[in-house]
């Protein structure tokens, strides 16, 4: 059987589901961020699969470059926030960090 579009979409779907599961079940803030990275990666796999098999040309690849760029920005900001939370609360458990006082 030839490898077609659906094969890649199934891989993207499984990675996406693993990412959503990670975001839902982790209480560790860095774990939550890793789940977000998984979700973004699954979107990228789909974009590039459609760019290869669809009729859109290179657009899919260009969009996935923007996704990678935003993921990098998100990781930098997110981890800076996590480190700030750790300095303030001495924990990064997202359930315990619920105080709004500065």
């Amino acid at each position, binding site marked *: *059987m030839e*490898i077609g579009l*659906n*094969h*890649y979409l199934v*891989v993207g*779907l*499984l990675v*996406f*589901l*693993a*990412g*959503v*599961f*990670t975001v*839902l*079940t*982790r*209480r560790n803030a*860095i774990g939550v961020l*890793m789940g977000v*990275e*998984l979700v973004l*990666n699954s979107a990228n*796999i789909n974009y*590039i*699969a459609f*760019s*290869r*098999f*669809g*009729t859109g*040309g*290179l*657009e899919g*690849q*260009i969009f996935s*470059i*923007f996704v*990678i*760029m*935003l*993921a*990098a*920005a998100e*990781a*930098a*900001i997110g*981890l*800076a*926030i*996590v*480190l*700030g939370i*750790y300095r303030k609360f*001495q*924990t*990064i458990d*997202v*359930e315990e960090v619920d105080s709004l006082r500065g």
Partner: protein
Amino acid sequence: MIYAALFYAIALFTVAGAFGVAFSENVVYSAFSLMATLLGAAGLYVFLGADFLAAVQLLVYVGGILVLTLFAIMLTHQISDVEVSNRAVGRWPALGLVGFVGIAMATALVRAPWKVSGEVVAKAAGEGTTYGIGDAFLGPFLLPFELASIVLLTALVGAIVLSRKEIRD
């Protein structure tokens, strides 16, 4: 035949890494599973003829984001105290939700009439996609490209402001 076998091996590697991130007990193991997923995704990009993106994936994700994540894990070394047993959402409700979403998306995937074209985007072997991507960035995608640089600058400044030590007079 070898092509299909290689594809299945890389796809399995990717998906196994993703499930490793989701189910591993230790965050450090999760980070290394994430590396497996990112490397596997780079392999899939090569399969899809996106050579430039495979290189970007390796440089930005594996070389940048993953190292940053590992740094954050090492700096917040109380990481092992965040137990797996006390979860934000229990494992079973989360599995139920994920299963529901998965079934819905799989149905959509099977039923949708995707428009598939036979031709490959990167036609000339050896030329690759880099030329086309560079051309698009300085042509029709110039405005998003410039906005992207503003976003990156903002993120850079924001990360510095957030992570510096505050000194009050």
